[in-house]
């Protein structure tokens, strides 16, 4: 049947099982919005205050639901406002399909009103960018985009549809969901082999190791491989540390869990990395925040890397063994190949590591944890509050933490929290932020209120850009410059301006009470933190 390009685009969203989109309209995408209007019973549209908020929300939605998020924006400034959100999704391998409209083909390249080369801009921060020139290409492109976003190592995909293509009509055949051109079919549909030899070699290395260590990254969570991870760790009695993106891959309450590795990591995890003789890194990409200087990273260890993305192998550190594959299936085949092992002496020696005594911020983080339990979704912004949360919350399950780990985008939190709550209304969503980060995108408070998406925002209010201030003390002779936030708004007045409840707290007990009270209805908690508090490695 013949349909307009816009109608095809929306029909394809429905085909893909999309029931929620985040976005912001403009004249270029008007036709698509009109189709969304006609299909408003099938697809819920969340109108944010800013396209960046919509992008982070679609990302947060994807992370909370493990489905593909969708975000729609108009041409020009609408499209460029997405960029930080696309990059944040890309760096943390989050599957989001971004749809923008551009000027008509006849205007392209003439610097027409609100024309921008968004596929050129987004090329390095997406798995793939499509510039769609005609209505006839829309269905195949959308289907391929959805398959790409969620397959292999997930990530964002951008589809920029030219103005003429949404208006023109084309033949549309409903489909089960996917399309691959004949040429691509041969290479994209080829079955993925598991490297049995690699698995045997790694199993042998594990059996020979005296001080083995598993490092679990975001790939374990993406793959849903927590059970397989636990099975392997328990069978081989191997301690597990995680990266920031891997927090929750194993419960922090488990006796094999050593906490977070890396520059701002826990003492036990850091010591284990320094001393292990085998490091089995799963679904990690050896970011500089994990390795520190690569020359001194895991100096005594044989390095084994398991990742679904071949290009991660030997990218940042040279490994001794590697397996390219899905974390879950590789870990399960490994568990099947190894014998039961015991490493009591190694575990005991690690258990003796002294963690640094944490300060007041740790008490705040633990108060939040006590108030919401382990069933909530915790979303953070970027800075000290983020690292305190990672270190002291005690994550117990995959998906419990949503944070901008790779890109470190301040302003990520509120949008992502709204997205998470939209996708999973059964869970309490706590948004832990700093006064700097919060101010970047607090305009999304109106989205939270309008759509009844309660988010408890806890502002670690230290009157400064704490993370940067800390660096100024350490590396810039305490020249505190441009990091003091001695200005409004008054967070209590702000809360009431948006129709939210506000609480001001000065100790952990008050914070606990406030979080408990606001958990069901959302609100803002102004939590006073000393400006000299710092985040240090354990």
């Amino acid at each position, binding site marked *: 049947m013949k349909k307009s390009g816009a109608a095809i685009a929306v029909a394809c969203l429905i085909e893909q*099982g999309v029931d929620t989109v985040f976005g912001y309209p403009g004249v270029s995408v008007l036709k698509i919005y009109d189709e969304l209007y006609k299909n408003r019973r099938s697809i819920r549209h969340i109108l944010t205050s800013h396209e960046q908020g919509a992008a982070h929300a679609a990302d947060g939605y994807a992370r909370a639901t493990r489905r593909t998020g969708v975000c729609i924006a108009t041409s020009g400034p609408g499209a460029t406002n997405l960029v930080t959100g696309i990059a944040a999704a890309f760096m943390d391998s989050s599957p989001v399909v971004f749809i923008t409209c551009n000027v008509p083909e006849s205007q392209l390249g003439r610097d027409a009103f609100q024309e921008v080369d968004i*596929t*050129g801009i987004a*090329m*390095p921060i997406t*798995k*793939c*960018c499509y*510039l769609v020139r005609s209505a006839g290409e829309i269905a195949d492109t959308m289907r391929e985009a959805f*398959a*790409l976003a*969620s*397959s*292999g*190592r997930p990530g964002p995909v951008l589809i920029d549809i030219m103005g003429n293509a949404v208006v023109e009509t084309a033949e549309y055949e409903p489909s*089960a*969901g*996917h399309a*691959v051109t004949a*040429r*691509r079919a*041969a*290479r*994209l*549909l*080829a*079955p*993925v*082999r598991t490297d049995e030899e690699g698995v045997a070699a790694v199993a042998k290395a594990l059996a020979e190791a005296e001080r083995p260590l598993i490092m679990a990254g975001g790939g374990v969570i993406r793959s849903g491989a927590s059970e397989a991870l636990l099975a392997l760790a328990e069978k081989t009695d191997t301690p597990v540390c995680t990266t920031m993106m891997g927090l929750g891959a194993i419960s922090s309450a488990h006796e094999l869990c050593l906490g977070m590795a890396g520059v701002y990591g826990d003492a036990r995890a850091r010591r284990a990395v320094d001393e292990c003789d085998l490091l089995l890194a799963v679904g990690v990409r050896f970011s500089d925040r994990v390795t520190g200087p690569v020359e001194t990273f895991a100096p005594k260890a044989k390095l084994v890397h398991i990742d*679904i*993305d*071949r*290009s991660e*192998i*030997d*990218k940042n550190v*040279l490994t001794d063994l590697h397996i*390219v*594959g*899905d974390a879950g299936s590789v870990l399960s085949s490994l568990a099947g190949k190894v014998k039961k092992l015991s490493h009591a002496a190694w575990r005991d020696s690690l258990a003796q590591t002294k963690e640094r005594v944490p300060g007041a911020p740790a008490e705040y983080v633990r108060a939040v944890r006590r108030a919401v339990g382990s069933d909530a979704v915790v979303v953070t912004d970027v800075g000290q509050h983020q690292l305190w949360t990672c270190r002291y919350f005690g994550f117990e399950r995959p998906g419990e933490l949503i944070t901008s780990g790779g890109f470190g985008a301040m302003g990520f939190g509120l949008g992502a929290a709204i997205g998470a709550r939209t996708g999973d209304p059964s869970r309490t969503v706590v948004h832990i932020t700093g006064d700097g980060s919060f101010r970047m995108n607090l305009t999304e408070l109106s989205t939270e209120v309008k759509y009844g998406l309660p988010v408890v925002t806890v502002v670690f209010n230290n009157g400064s850009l704490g993370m940067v201030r800390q660096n100024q003390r350490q590396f810039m002779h305490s020249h505190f410059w441009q990091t003091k936030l001695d200005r409004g708004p008054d967070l209590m007045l702000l809360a009431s301006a948006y129709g939210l409840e506000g609480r001001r707290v000065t100790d952990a007990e008050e914070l606990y009470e406030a979080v408990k009270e606001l958990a069901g209805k959302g609100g803002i908690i102004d939590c006073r933190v000393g400006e000299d508090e710092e985040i240090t490695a354990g």
Partner: protein
Amino acid sequence: MKRTLSILVENSAGVLSQVTRLFSRKNWNIDSLAVGETQDPSVSRITVMVEGSDQRIRQVQAQLGKLLPVISVCELDESLSIHREFMLVKVRAEDKDSRDEIISIVNVFRASIVDICRTSLMIAITGDEAKNGAMLALLKDFGILEMARTGMIALERGSATIYDATKDRSEFDYAKSVVSAEDKDA
């Protein structure tokens, strides 16, 4: 060491910029680049020369593999393949002596003179890096006025082809996602 990569890509808009931008954002320097259609007009072949260790080359191949329009990538070993580049060189030749000397150089290299005027000669030459480099070194003494080159192209010797090296698509794991989507509908 200079290494040669041959890349088959879908012949569609923006593919070349995807490939070259990957090189620039990864901070890999392109020494030479040549692009052209293949016997199948929907497929182009890109030949790139880059400097790098084995690790670097593996990384380049893996990153190229992640670009959707890239069909296959292979490294062409210098000794197992034929490398050729075509150059046009305009040299100063203002007197008979220089002209004669240049003509004899051209003959030795089996190059050809494709244009001549009172003060200069234009030379066309096809060869690998060693041959073209040697001739350029000799012509430099006369004064090179301007030159243009196509960039190196190369093919593996024997009957093996780049089609044997169709890249591993595991990073997309696309098949899995197609299957699960169909399961969902069933």
